[in-house]
């Protein structure tokens, strides 16, 4: 579905607020049909980028090109806005019926009532709210309201939809069902989508590419696998959940693997580095295995350390175990393993992880 052609290209996009650069995007290209997620902490500039892409901010400098044509004049801006759609975090529905809301974009475009009737009906059906057509927008639940808002955006058959945290104000079951429907609709319509979210799970599920934003800049952009497994810097690594971070220097290298020394402990990892180089290593907590005995020969894990449990934090389906192995290490264990291994705070355990589970970033000198 994703073509090589860029539908949207951005160069040197800057937004200043109170003298501070809140957005600074040197370049970004979005392919036709792709779903791009913007993730990052609050204040990273996700919403600002969406508004800037929609050309809804006054203080924007830079170039936005839609299908190769720069959006600059009032005329082209207006034409451009009618080819895209934006959905905000709050549904922002008008005080009228669901029908009137979903029809509003079409009405703005001057479509006749009899023409829009079928389009609106189809759109409502698609979002599973056909039965609400004559309901007042004031009397909708949170999920129904956000469905109406999404239907309103899709009714105009936009070439790009911009979604600003569309699920964040919904409760988990509602969010789950709406996300499933949106996933299906995006697949069916092949609409190019740019979605801001602070939820990685949302991003992983829906996106072809993920851009991690920090302080108004895109820190990394790539496929979900690239971003999750090969973060380019410490910020991205910690944002995508690589909880264990330590720096060391390379002591030995052989056959693509190397040994790095971290607070006196030797850790084996994979990567093209030279002895003496400084590196930062990241390990995902789910890649760390805990055991009570060191004799587990079946494991292919090259790294095994004895450590003390500092803290056990319940996280719902699993527990987060913070260890001190001479360096801090974080592991996730299921409730079952916690009981089987009878893990307790200040107990001694063995932690192991594969050399390939260590993600390495070479540090600038």
């Amino acid at each position: 579905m994703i073509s090589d052609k860029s539908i949207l290209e951005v160069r040197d996009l800057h937004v200043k607020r109170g003298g501070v650069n809140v957005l600074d995007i040197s370049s970004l290209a979005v392919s036709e049909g792709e779903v791009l997620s913007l993730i990052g902490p609050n204040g990273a500039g996700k919403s600002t980028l969406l508004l800037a892409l929609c050309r809804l901010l006054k203080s924007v400098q830079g170039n936005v090109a839609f299908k190769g044509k720069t959006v600059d004049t009032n005329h082209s801006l207006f034409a451009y806005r009618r080819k895209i759609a934006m959905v905000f975090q709050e549904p922002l529905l008008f005080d009228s019926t669901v029908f009137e809301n979903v029809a509003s974009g079409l009405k703005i475009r001057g479509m006749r009532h009899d023409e829009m009737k079928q389009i609106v009906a189809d759109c409502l059906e698609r979002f599973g709210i056909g039965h609400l057509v004559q309901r007042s927008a004031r009397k909708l639940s949170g999920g129904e309201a956000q469905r109406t808002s999404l239907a309103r955006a899709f009714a105009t058959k936009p070439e790009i939809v911009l979604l600003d945290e569309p699920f964040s104000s919904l409760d988990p079951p509602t969010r789950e069902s709406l996300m499933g429907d949106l996933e299906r609709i995006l697949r069916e319509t092949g609409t190019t989508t740019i979605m801001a979210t602070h939820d990685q799970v949302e991003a992983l599920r829906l996106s072809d590419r993920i851009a991690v934003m920090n302080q108004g800049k895109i820190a990394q952009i790539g496929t979900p696998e690239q971003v999750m497994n090969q973060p380019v810097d410490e910020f991205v690594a910690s944002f995508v959940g690589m909880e264990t971070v330590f720096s060391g220097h390379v002591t030995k290298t052989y056959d693509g693997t190397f040994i790095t020394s971290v607070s006196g402990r030797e850790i084996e990892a994979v990567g093209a580095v030279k002895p003496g180089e400084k590196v930062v290593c990241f390990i995902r907590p789910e890649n760390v295995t805990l055991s009570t005995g060191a004799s587990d020969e079946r494991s292919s894990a090259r790294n095994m350390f004895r450590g003390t449990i500092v803290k056990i934090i319940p996280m719902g389906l699993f527990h987060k175990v913070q260890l001190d192995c001479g360096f801090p290490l974080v592991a996730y264990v299921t409730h079952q393993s916690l009981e089987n291994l009878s893990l307790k705070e200040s107990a001694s355990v063995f932690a192991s992880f594969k050399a390939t589970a260590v993600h390495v970033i070479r540090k600038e000198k």
Partner: protein
Amino acid sequence: MDIIIEGIKQAFILLFTLDPEVLGITWLSLKISGTATFLSMFLGVSVGTAVALTQFPGRRFVVSLINTGMGLPPVVVGLFVTIFLWRNGPLGFLEILYTPTAIIIAQTVIATPIVMGISLAAIQNLPANLRLQILALGATRLQMVWILVKEARLPLLAAIMAGFGGVISEVGASIMVGGNIKGYSRVLTTATVMETGKGNFDIAMALGIILLLLAFAVNAILTQIQQRDRPR
């Protein structure tokens, strides 16, 4: 006590026999205040909306000016309108002092800031992102403003009602610029003042009851709007 009971009795007789003078005064009051409200609706809603939606230097000062205007004392308005319309005043050539037109002008001056102030607040109270959402739907600026006004229709209606309530019950300006001329520029409030002065409590009470009923009707509609607006 007799004077009150007798007054109320007489008042109802005047009301139910559709006394031509009382009816005439009521009709003129409605015509004058209705016209003034209609004019202030255009001025108030448009300027209020414009101020709510734009940023310009001195905006804060303009907003506080409008808010002050909401409490403009009618006698002060009456005084200035009289000066302007006085034979050798700036607008004296119009020769409209002591006419219903003069009352309409004065009442419009009183009602406009009321409508403007409430309209401004109503448009400003809409969600901040709503404007962006409307533009993102492809609306022109004019379409956006129209949709916003429609969204704020209930508080805007309340603004108009408040304007009407303010002028129908106003007496100071009406008596100063209208002159309370019998059968010509005599309205409910000015007539009530005069009849009370003359000791004709029955007529004064009949007029007072009509005023109360009008005030009640306006408030009943306002309450209706507020209650409809209340989240369930």
